[in-house]
Structure formats: structure tokens, C-alpha cells
């Protein structure tokens, strides 16, 4: 397998989309190619960091009264006629 193909497989793998046969091909390429092995490790790390970045609650948030404020900006209620029921 060429390295270019291996990189494409790595991404599919991280997307959870790599069929097991290709995963085995990727594995044997990684066993043989130190550069791809290191690229794969750093891609996996990036992926973990990206998901981990979201694990902590965001430091910014809407204020408590946001819902009331949003509601107060809406136009006055008018009767809609539902198109589906």
C-alpha cells in the first residue's frame, strides 16, 4: 500500500468507516512504515484532543434569563393554521 492510500484509510478509520479488510491492510502498512505509524499516532491524538476539548463545560454561557429575553423579542403571537396535523 502506498502511504497516500494509508493516510486516506487512517481518516476513514477515525470516522469509524473503514471496513475490516482495509483495516487489516492499514495495520500491515503501519507495521512496516514508521512514518505512517507516527502520523497515525498523532492523528489519533488530535482526534482525542478534539473530543476532549468538548468534555468540559464551556466557560461562556448564556445568562439565566436568556429564554425570557428571547421570548420578549418575538413578534406578538398570531394564530397560525397548522399545515399538518
Amino acid at each position: 500500500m502506498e502511504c497516500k492510500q494509508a493516510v486516506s484509510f487512517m481518516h476513514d478509520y477515525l470516522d469509524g468507516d473503514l471496513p475490516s479488510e482495509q483495516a487489516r491492510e492499514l495495520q500491515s502498512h503501519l507495521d512496516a512504515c514508521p512514518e505512517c505509524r507516527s502520523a497515525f499516532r498523532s492523528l489519533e491524538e488530535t482526534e482525542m484532543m478534539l473530543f476532549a476539548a468538548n468534555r468540559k463545560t464551556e466557560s461562556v454561557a448564556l445568562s439565566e434569563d436568556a429564554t425570557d429575553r428571547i421570548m420578549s423579542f418575538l413578534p406578538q403571537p398570531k394564530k397560525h393554521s397548522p399545515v399538518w396535523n
Partner: protein
Amino acid sequence: MDNLETRLVKLALKGDQRAFAEIVDLYKDRIFHLAYRMLSNRHEAEDVVQETFLRVYRNLDRYDPGQKFSTWIYRIGTNLSIDRLRKRKPTYSLDAEIGDQDGADGYALIPGDNRTPETEYMISETRTTIHEAIDGLPPKYKTVMILRYLQELSLQEISEVLDMPVTTIKTRVHRGREFLRKKLESPQR
């Protein structure tokens, strides 16, 4: 689940304001975080939240209950955020720019609460680095990466929100990931 949203939409269509307030409650934070990550500006993000719900309210009768409500509202929030990003910057060829962005586009990170325990310092610093790296992406990659990693939507869901083929979304995730990998590996640029 979606059934809840569908019921709330029906009630809101009949003029039940409380039902609409429930919808606002369910989605306001998600839309805010989406917009905040896209725009890096609290004030603008709040405006996007407001506009999103105004649009949802005005177009409620056009909501198709066959579609997931979350997809519909994410689409509105994402488009409003993208519109603002576009207005803010001159347009440029996104593909040509990849690898050339350094995130220094004048945004200020809002400081979190200042009593972060030492043990969390590293985590929070990493998080800041990641958010900065995402901020530095050209908009079309940034949108996809935010939806994927910060909103945790699936590739399929992103494709529905952005109304683009899954293959396009995949390509963008792949390129975005490569970009971030390089960025996160070498913080000194």
C-alpha cells in the same frame, strides 16, 4: 426525543407561547455554543441565538416534521453564523488558504472563571489551544469541525445540516483534521 419537539412545535403553532419557550430552553445553549465557536464573540453569538429563534418562530409552519428538528434549527443557526463570518472578512479562496491561517484574526478569547484549580490548568490550556486552532481554520472547514467535534454531530447529520453530500463533509473533516494535527504538533509558528 424528536417526538417532544414535534409536539412542542404543534402547540406553538396553535399559539402556545409556553411551548415555544420550551423549544428555546432546549436549544438555546447548543445554538449559543455553536455560534460562539464560529464567531469567537459573545455579543455576536447572542445575536445569532436571538435571530435563530426569531426565524424558527416565523417559519414554524414550514417545519417538516419528517425532518429532525435539531437538524433544522442547526441549519438555521449555522447559516446565520456563516453569514456573519462572511460579512466580517473579505472573501478568499478557501482551498488556497489552508495551511496558511494562523488564527490571528482579531478575536479575543473570553477569560473563563479565574478560580481554575491547578490540576485543571493543563486541560484548560489544551482546550484553549484546540479552540484557537479551530478558530484559525478557513470557514468551510471550521464549520464542519465545530459541528463534528464541538457539537458532536455525525457525518450524516452534518451533511443534512449543511445540505451537502456526505463525501464532501468527509473530505473537509479529513483536511481539517490534518490541518489541526499540524497545528497542534507545532505550536510555534
